[in-house]
């Protein structure tokens, strides 16, 4: 056997580090809690190594397959490191490092009873995500996929003494399992040629064999649907998203950051791997892009609208993740549509934008979740309405979160903007499509996309404005203090990553070019990559362009200029005084806006996105109380009816149980007679 290429061996090494440290950490932490910090540092070192090696292998376009002993007879464990896996490993390692560093500082607050288990699950969770990206056959993929689901569930269930946490974990696990089954079906249909023997049968389940399969159009569509729904369950595809806003907030902070920031990307990985890699562009159809695109757009809108109504910061961020996943789906649909209508350039831009947005989202969403965790911890509540004034008390972490907010809102010069910009450029290529339906769909997608991203800015203003600004709305919030150094390091790492992604997108786009080439055989147009590290010119040399580093430089230069001028001319004297209160001197924190007030116009304007119950008190009531509850409409209109249906079915099935022996004997008797008559007369 040849020696493994360096990135591969680093990958395996990191995998074993995570497994080993996790397994070893469990008993160690039971004995000595203080070991947590060094152990978490060990995990993060692994993570940094992973990011480093993934970055190298992505840029060099490493493509290496190998097998490991194990698995089923005739189906060894197949592993594969290609640009696509490298890219997602980079996400895992890059964003993971920040979270792991943070957890080294934040976990000290966790109860000692939960610490070892949490640590174990955390490291195994990381390892299983790595496995998902490396697996190259259906069996191994499913093992890692389910392991990932499982360990993440355990992470969610860390505070399982609270019933809402248990419910969230349960719902999540159920959805995850449902998704896994569909994914499994997708694999099987991809490999569904009847081979001759056991060995051939199992070999057809390797990704390599699946990539060469030639399913019919109908079958391809079935596979497409299965893949979409299967991975959609993990990604939070509407209507399978209901677990997401429950599970992500229920988990301890590092876990929710990983779930939202990184794990959702595994679903994207799966979709891209199965649709573009295994099913192949040849078996896709342009028309299928439309539902994907529109679902993505609606999902983005739905997600952000709900985000705007949340008063739990983590819930807000979870819904915002749904929005971002919607954007990713939209991009994938767009890519399919363009590729299959014969416009690879626009398709590449869309796919590239999707990948870029994936890594952006990973960085800023983990950062924001960590931030949300710090304020929840600092103010001892998960209600934005009891926070406020935290930026003064936690200036460094607050500043980092502010940076994250700007990055996440899809505004220049942030990193989120780069990917949204690319995606918009791709939608604006709609004029090259000859089919009016396709065009209209793309434009509708674009319209939804810009609407959603504008709303997301509003959502983040709510998050930051209510949480960090103003005056404290509760006593605890007033007593908040800055988080520990390790936590800041973790958040700083993520913010730094965002900044790099924002300033130097071209470097990574070169890597993404390898990914797209290995998946579709197409490469980015020369103009995109010829801009050095300064210019992004996606379509042509004279078309639209954007230069993130220059813009950043200009802004950095322009911001302090007036300040300097002001200082030079005349240093203004400064004093502090109470804020204006219409002439009244009483000013309580309750006079500030609430988080719910921020959502009010949204509720008012988009009522059909919510299942609302409102009770307005009658004028003569003694204790007038306005009651308002807002719910995800999928609960009352989809899932609860489904649940009722299931209960009805199981009651029906239970009618078989009469408890009377005679009736049971009749069953046997009738079965026998029935079979005999069938045998005799058919």
């Amino acid at each position, binding site marked *: 056997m040849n020696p493994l290429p360096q990135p591969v061996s680093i990958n395996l090494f990191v995998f074993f580090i995570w497994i080993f440290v996790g397994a070893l950490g469990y008993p160690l932490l039971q004995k000595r809690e203080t070991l947590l910090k060094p152990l978490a540092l060990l995990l993060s070192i692994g993570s940094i190594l992973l990011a480093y090696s993934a970055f190298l292998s992505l840029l060099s376009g490493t493509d290496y397959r190998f097998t490991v002993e194990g698995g089923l*007879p005739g189906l060894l464990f197949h592993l594969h490191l290609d640009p696509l896996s490298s890219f997602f490993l980079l996400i895992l390692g890059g964003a993971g490092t920040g979270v792991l560093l943070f957890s080294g500082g934040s976990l000290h607050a966790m109860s000692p009873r939960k610490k070892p288990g949490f640590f174990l699950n955390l490291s195994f969770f990381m390892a299983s995500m790595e496995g998902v990206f490396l697996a190259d056959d259906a069996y191994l993929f499913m093992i890692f996929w389910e392991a990932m689901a499982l360990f993440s569930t355990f992470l969610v269930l860390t505070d399982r003494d609270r019933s809402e946490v248990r419910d969230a974990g349960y719902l999540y696990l*159920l959805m995850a399992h449902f998704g896994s089954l569909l994914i499994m079906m997708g694999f099987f249909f991809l490999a569904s040629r009847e081979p001759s023997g*056991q060995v051939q049968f199992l070999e057809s389940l390797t990704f390599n064999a699946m990539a060469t399969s030639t399913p019919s159009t109908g079958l391809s569509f079935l596979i497409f649907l299965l893949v979409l729904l299967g991975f959609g369950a993990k990604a939070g595809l509407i209507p399978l998203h209901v677990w997401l806003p429950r599970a992500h907030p229920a988990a301890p902070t590092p876990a929710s950051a990983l779930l939202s920031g990184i794990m959702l990307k595994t679903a994207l990985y799966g979709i891209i791997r199965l649709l573009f890699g295994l099913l192949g562009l040849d078996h896709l159809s342009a028309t299928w892009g439309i539902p994907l695109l529109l679902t993505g757009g609606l999902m983005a809108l739905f997600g952000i609208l709900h985000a705007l109504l949340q008063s739990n910061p983590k819930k807000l961020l979870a819904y915002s993740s749904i929005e971002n996943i919607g954007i990713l789906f939209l991009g994938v649909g767009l890519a399919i549509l363009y590729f299959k209508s014969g416009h690879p350039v626009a398709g590449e831009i869309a796919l590239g934008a999707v990948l870029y947005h994936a890594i952006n989202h990973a960085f800023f969403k983990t950062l924001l979740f960590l931030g949300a965790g710090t304020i929840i911890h600092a103010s001892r509540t998960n209600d934005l309405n009891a926070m406020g004034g935290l930026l003064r008390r936690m200036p460094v972490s607050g500043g980092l979160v502010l940076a994250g907010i700007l990055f996440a809102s899809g505004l220049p010069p942030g990193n989120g903007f780069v990917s949204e910009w690319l995606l918009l450029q791709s939608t604006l290529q709609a004029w090259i499509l000859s089919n009016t339906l396709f065009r209209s769909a793309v434009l509708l997608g674009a319209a939804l996309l810009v609407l959603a991203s504008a709303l997301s800015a509003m959502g983040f203003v709510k998050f930051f404005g209510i949480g960090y600004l103003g005056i404290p709305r509760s006593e605890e919030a007033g007593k908040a203090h800055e988080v520990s150094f390790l936590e800041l390091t973790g958040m700083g790492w993520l913010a730094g990553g965002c900044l790099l992604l924002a300033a130097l997108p071209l470097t990574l786009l070169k890597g993404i070019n390898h990914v797209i080439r290995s998946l579709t055989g197409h490469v980015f147009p020369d103009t995109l990559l010829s801009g050095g590290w300064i210019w992004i010119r996606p379509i042509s040399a004279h078309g639209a362009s954007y230069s993130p580093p220059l813009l950043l430089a200009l802004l950095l230069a322009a911001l302090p200029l007036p300040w300097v001028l002001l200082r030079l001319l005349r240093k203004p004297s400064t004093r502090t005084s109470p804020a204006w209160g219409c002439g009244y001197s009483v000013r309580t924190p309750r006079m500030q806006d609430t988080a719910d007030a921020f959502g009010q116009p949204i509720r008012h304007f988009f009522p059909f996105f919510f299942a609302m119950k409102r009770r307005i008190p009658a004028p003569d009531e003694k204790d007038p109380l306005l009651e308002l509850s807002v719910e995800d409409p999928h609960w009352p209109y989809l899932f609860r009816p489904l649940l009722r249906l299931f209960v009805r079915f199981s009651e029906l099935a*239970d009618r078989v149980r009469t408890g009377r022996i005679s009736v*049971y004997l009749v069953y046997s008797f009738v079965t026998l007679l029935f079979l005999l008559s069938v045998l005799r007369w058919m």
Partner: protein
Amino acid sequence: MFLLSILLSPLIGAFVMGFVGHTKAASRLNILFSFLTFGATFLLAWNVFANGPLVGLDEQLFADGFSAIFIVLTGGIGATTSLFSHRYMAIEKSRGHLTGEKQRLYLSLYQVFLLTMLVVLVSNNLGLLWVSLEGATLTTVLLVAWSRTPESVKAAWKYFILCGVGIAQALFGTILLYFASEKTLGPGGTALLWTHLAAVKHTLEPTVIGLAFVFFIVGYGTKVGLVPLHNWLPDAHAEGPAPISAVLSGLLLNVALYAILRIKVLADGSLHNPLTAHLLMGFGLLSVLLGSLSMWKRQDIKRLFAYSSIEHMGLATFAFGLGGPMGSFAGLLHMTAHSLIKSSIFFVVGHIVQTSGSQKIPEIRDVALRTPSLARALLIGGLAVTGIPPFAIFASEFLILSVAVRRAPWSLPLLLLAIIVTFGVLYFRIQEMNGESGRSLSFPNEKPKITFYPIWIHFGLAFLIGLFFTHELGRLYGLALHSIGLTNG
């Protein structure tokens, strides 16, 4: 005489237990005998895999690769269960639920039960197979009724009547089979010997064989717990002592399915139509569906897992119905996996019931708080039994579904529904049991010493099988299936 030797140990054991079963050391002696049996079965299997099938006692006994797998499984689980039952009974005893007499009855019947199952597995004579399966039924009837509570008597009675009637149908099937084979093989000794039948299976009269197979599947199917013949199963599992539930679910159901499969091979040779496949798939699917749908309403933890057994036996049956090299392989793997996991779950459940003093799920609370290791074991059992990788049931379900995609895609919606429902319900219940308590604990101050070896051995094996089902082992399985012709079709 390998074949006899595996029977010897339980036989002697049964007698010894009959005499000294009430003494203090008897339980340890039981472990000794069970492990001796396990050793013998292991050697036998080794021999079979190394040197080919064994025939003995005037061709009445016989073991090939297929039976060897079941023999080892029976021996192994019989041994670990004896380990578990030692601790289980010790706890019962410490609470005054166990007299010496009862212990003697229990231990000797336990050995007899092992004996009858091993006889089923090594008998070449289909009549003898019937006899010993009936013997196993009778033994377990007594074991189910062992605690003498009204509920257990009821359950045993139900079990006795339903299985008695069922197995009578199987006897009629045997008669029909004999009737058909006698024409080729001539009257007398050899016409019921499986080895001879297999050699001439193509010449057997299809009309009769078809009829016979229906009687067999209704008869032995009752013992497998195929819906709608399954109604004895939940009660028997729920009311018997936990070790017995474990071996019922882990072994007896397997052995009954083993019998059906032996007949299926013969019937397939004669019939030239997919009758057996269709019957197995039909029964299997029905069991899977009803088994999973019935779980929601269950309030009794053992009953809950009994329905899970119905579901899993249905799945295995379905897999054999799918047939082909992979279908049968998956079915056999599923049986192996289910035996290991379900018996272990019953170990866990047994201890949980002992520590919480009730079998009713709403009354079982705080397991995680009271005995974290039990809660962990229950959780892992739940994971393993619902097909979470890398436990072996995942591997088999993976394969079953992949074969179903190719051979019976129409069945997929039903299978998936059943799998997800099972998963959902089981977790719901497990979570419920870990939840807050609504009532005070029955044995608040008592911390029974629980043995986890058998539990972890089973789970560990299931884990390893799922993760490293080596090529070598796979070859053995493949050979075993191929040699008896289950890979055709």
